[in-house]
């Protein structure tokens, strides 16, 4: 059909293109340009607004801001790594070790918590871990603890919570790729005397790299941008960068500052994803499929 009638107006094209262009420009492109503009705007002593670098200057001047930023970035990378380390053996079990009959069932089982809202999952952990929580009660009853301990509100619990809420976004893409890995490759390597570690290093990992990359990008993104889990499970004296953004925007009502923070977070996430793609020589379009 296409190009057969080059001079006629292509109505089908216009019908499909208009809503998509409206969506992408009005809700993605323009808002982010506005974000960029706001981040370079400031109000001076007399209430006149104009161009300024002050909002970014503030970020570098105040150690609390860039420390929170660095902490959020490092923890996000760390969480992504842990998620990967747990997901590989789990996906391997589901696709290659479990009986063929139970595979579908196990996959659904893994998927179900993925559909339950993050808030409910975090709430579940709060019920388990808090001072009056279920785990404390059992440990005291068994005599392991003499008094209940507060297990929430520290960085270890927060990391665990982040791993928990984002893990499924790693498992799903890796299952997708690992399923298509031909068992014969592993059998051949085994028959030729390869050790398990060699098989993992030389066959399995290289084969599932596209899945690992899509999973890592989504997990990293979700963790970096998450608000609920750090807020409800993390320590009270160290913030996540999204909380910093929320505070500037909603509590101090300083939208210019919030915009600068938001843009920095966006820059960071794009940069890390870009570097990860370059290092592993993957294409963005292939990875997000």
């Amino acid at each position: 059909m296409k190009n057969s009638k080059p001079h006629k107006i292509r109505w089908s094209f216009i019908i499909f293109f208009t809503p998509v262009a409206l969506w992408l420009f009005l809700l993605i492109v323009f808002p982010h340009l506005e974000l960029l503009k706001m981040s370079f705007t400031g109000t001076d002593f007399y209430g006149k607004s104009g161009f300024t670098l002050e909002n970014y200057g503030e970020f570098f001047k105040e150690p609390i801001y860039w420390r929170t930023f660095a902490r959020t970035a490092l923890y996000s990378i760390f969480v992504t790594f842990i998620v990967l380390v747990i997901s590989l053996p789990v996906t391997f079990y589901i696709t290659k070790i479990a009986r063929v009959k139970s595979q579908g069932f196990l996959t659904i089982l893994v998927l179900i918590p993925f559909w339950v809202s993050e808030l409910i999952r975090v709430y579940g952990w709060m019920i388990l871990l808090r001072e009056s929580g279920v785990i404390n009660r059992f440990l005291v009853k068994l005599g392991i603890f003499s008094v209940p301990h507060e297990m929430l509100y520290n960085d270890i619990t927060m990391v665990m919570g982040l791993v928990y809420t984002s893990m499924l976004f790693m498992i799903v893409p890796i299952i997708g790729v690992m399923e298509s890995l031909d068992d014969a490759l592993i059998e051949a390597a085994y028959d030729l005397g390869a050790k398990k570690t060699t098989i993992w290093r030389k066959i399995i990992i290289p084969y599932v790299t596209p899945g690992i990359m899509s999973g890592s990008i989504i997990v990293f993104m979700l963790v970096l941008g998450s608000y609920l889990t750090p807020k409800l499970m993390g320590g009270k004296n160290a913030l996540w960068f999204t909380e910093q953004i929320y505070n500037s925007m909603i509590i101090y009502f300083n939208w210019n500052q919030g915009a600068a923070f938001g843009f920095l977070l966006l820059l960071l996430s794009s940069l890390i994803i870009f570097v990860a793609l370059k290092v592993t020589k993957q294409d963005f379009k292939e990875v997000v499929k």
Partner: protein
Amino acid sequence: MIRTLPNSKAYTAAYRLFIAVFFIFLFSPLLITMILAFNNSMFPSLPWKGFTLDWFFGRGPDKIGIFHDDSNLRSIFTSIRVAVAVSALSTLVGTMAAFLFEQEDFKFKQVFYFLMLAPLVIPGVILGISILLFTNAVGLFFEDKLGFDMKFLSPGYWLVVFGQFSFITTITTMTISARLKKFDRTLEEAAYNLGANKFEVLRFITLKYLRPSIVGAAAIAFLMSFENFNTTLFLVGSDQTLPINLYLQVRDGSTPVINAIAFLLITFTSIVAVANLYGGNKKDQA
């Protein structure tokens, strides 16, 4: 190593143990939340004080169940209204986007394709504040220059719908595109040869073929909208959606009525997810 190769007993046992621990880790918070919805206590914690349905049906004065809890019922209703709108809009535009990227050729197609994927790597919080800033600027512009008060551009129902729509449409586009990619276009040609017009081909051939993916995309969009927190947080007005309302209650401490809501949500989402999975599989094979 794999099921066709011999494994040592210790290896198999250790692996099974790991998987068992993994699934316990996965389900214990959900199960304990659901169980405590039936605990006859004022707090969502042990000890077990006996079975009750008060957190579902209680009329007060001390135990108000979810079905008599006005604030939570209202937020559930708000969430449903948002999710229905987002699901309908994002499925419609997602279908159009799928046709646009799979069947049309145009200048800067690659740029648009890249833009379409971008919401996947933009943190939800950033989407929320960008849209808030932009709609505020547009609203101010209209008010200053034209004297209109554009109510729907200030935080509230429509802003939440726009915000969620902005990234959920990427998901629906990808879901529907995946199926459209596999569509055999000779079917269309056959229909044209048999005298069908463009509209009939679209309706009876292409859309019919796409239907499972459209239904699946709508269900995914509904669930994603219903549970969205990060983007909504910045766009919400006085009508709070369920996740925002729950968040405030969880943060400030609450009664097990939250467990009752969680019980209903987990049950509901599991049913939708399983139906979607089974439904999708069956139709793919047919």
